[in-house]
């Protein structure tokens, strides 16, 4: 187990005081994370010493930039158990999901084919399919929830002969539920479906290995795991990527362009059009190294402890309904809840007065909230630098909100 106080020393942001003169209890890590000096310095160093357009120049500097970029690809591959050639750099998990959905649909789907997703998906794994539904007439089916906030048992009954793709989240950004993606991929594959896993909420918090999961595609964001915004990864099985068309066109993704035609570059560059986000890739590599040093297993344990403390605190409050699993082992460090007397926005405003950053709203999962019969919820989510003391501050703020709204 690592020492979160020692970890905090690496994060300049956490030393800042809020307008209320306190340090911020930042409990919105499912949205984005703060950055350690190691990541910030790596980016600074890249621009001071190695900045040039990669894959372009013959001069030494461009080679250095290419080396930085490609070594980040290798680091990302190693982090999720993939080959470098299977890692496509994208803006974020959302762009990754869009790339995978569109390219896969162009290659293998026809009107009337069906895609199976779940009701706990983030909009990033719903809207790309809705767009394809409008554009090419595919149909979307949903795996429903069991009462405890996991996916329903016997979900495979939702696979029809027309189902070509099963695409689900590794971990829910609201319920925190960690899905048994290994079993889902094995079952889906047996039925001849392509499998896509949205790993945005899993990769930062647990050991994710695409080989062990057995998925065809996987996507995640850098900014939710200490790296900068604007860098993410779409993983695809090499043999599939070779059969799929490019997503965006432009520089770098071609071998040759003529007036009326073009020949694509090799995988993965075929999927990376235009000057890439090298600083983002450099930052991602530094973040991966930082997380590996802490150890993903230790991170998971640390978050489990914070999650347990939070669940216990919320259980004390008779007006609170916790959404999703109440066992910390089965979820990532995300706890969403509603209060039957205080609206999530009001609760978040009172939290803000206490310098506690807590999320309120639908968390980009509107169909999930509709299924749960609510428009919005409150959510706290943890990462490596969070402490038990911050959860105490969250509890105090909750009590204060109950006092303000005369619940007690």
């Amino acid at each position: 187990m690592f020492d979160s106080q020692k970890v905090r020393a690496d994060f300049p942001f956490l030393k800042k005081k809020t307008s209320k003169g306190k340090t911020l209890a930042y409990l919105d890590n499912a949205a984005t994370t703060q950055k350690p000096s190691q990541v910030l310095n790596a980016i600074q160093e890249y621009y001071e010493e190695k900045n040039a357009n990669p894959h372009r120049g013959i001069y030494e500097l461009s080679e250095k930039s290419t080396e930085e970029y490609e070594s980040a690809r290798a680091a990302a591959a190693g982090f999720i158990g993939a080959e470098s050639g299977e890692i496509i750099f994208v803006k974020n998990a959302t762009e990754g999901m869009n790339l995978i959905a569109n390219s896969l649909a162009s290659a293998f789907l026809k009107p009337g084919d069906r895609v199976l997703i779940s009701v706990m998906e983030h909009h990033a794994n719903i809207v790309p399919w809705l767009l394809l539904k409008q554009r090419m007439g595919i149909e979307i089916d949903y795996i429903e929830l069991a009462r405890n906030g996991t996916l329903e048992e016997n979900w495979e009954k939702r696979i029809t002969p027309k189902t070509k793709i099963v695409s689900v989240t590794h971990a829910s950004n609201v319920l925190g539920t960690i899905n048994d993606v290994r079993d889902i991929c094995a079952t889906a594959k047996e039925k001849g479906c392509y499998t896509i896993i949205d790993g945005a909420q899993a990769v930062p918090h647990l050991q994710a290995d695409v080989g062990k999961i057995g998925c065809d595609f996987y996507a995640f964001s850098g900014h939710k795991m200490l790296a900068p915004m604007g860098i993410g990864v779409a993983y695809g099985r090499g043999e599939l990527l070779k059969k799929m068309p490019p997503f965006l066109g432009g520089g770098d993704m071609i071998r040759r362009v003529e007036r009326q035609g073009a020949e694509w570059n090799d995988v993965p560059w075929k999927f990376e059009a235009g000057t890439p986000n090298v600083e983002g890739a450099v930052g991602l590599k530094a973040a991966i190294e930082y997380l590996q040093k802490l150890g993903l297993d230790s991170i998971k344990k640390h978050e489990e402890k914070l999650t347990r403390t939070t669940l216990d605190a919320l259980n004390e409050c008779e007006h609170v309904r916790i959404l999703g699993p109440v066992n910390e082992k089965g979820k990532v460090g995300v706890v969403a809840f509603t209060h039957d007397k205080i609206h999530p926005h009001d609760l978040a405003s009172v939290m803000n007065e206490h310098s506690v950053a807590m999320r309120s709203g639908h968390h980009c999962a509107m169909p999930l909230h509709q299924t749960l019969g609510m428009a919005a919820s409150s959510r706290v989510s943890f990462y490596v630098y969070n402490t038990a003391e911050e959860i105490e501050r969250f509890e105090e703020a909750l009590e204060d909100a109950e006092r303000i709204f005369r619940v007690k």
Partner: protein
Amino acid sequence: MYSEAVLRYYELPPNKSKIPGADKHAHADNPLCGDEIAVYLKIKGGKIVKASFEGQGCAISQAAASMLLESIEGKKLEDVLKTGEKDVLKLLGGAITPARLKCAFLGLEALKKTVAEG
């Protein structure tokens, strides 16, 4: 933000009801947080004689709607159209943080819609 007045209007809004046979009626919502306001106006000789609302949502959206509708009773329709965001903030008293302005102005949006197209 949560003054005694805001909390009082939130808990016991004096004008939260439907007006049967209202002359004008319209509805606005914010799907981001599920807040909803439906406004009802009774009008006589170009003047608002009764204004009420139905709705659900956070304290700010509900209190602001209630306060706003109370403040326009007796006013001419054309004057109500001149009511703006500043007036709502004045009614609410304290400072509203930027993220909550949408909540504060939902009632105003519903009112303007009611006068214009209801």
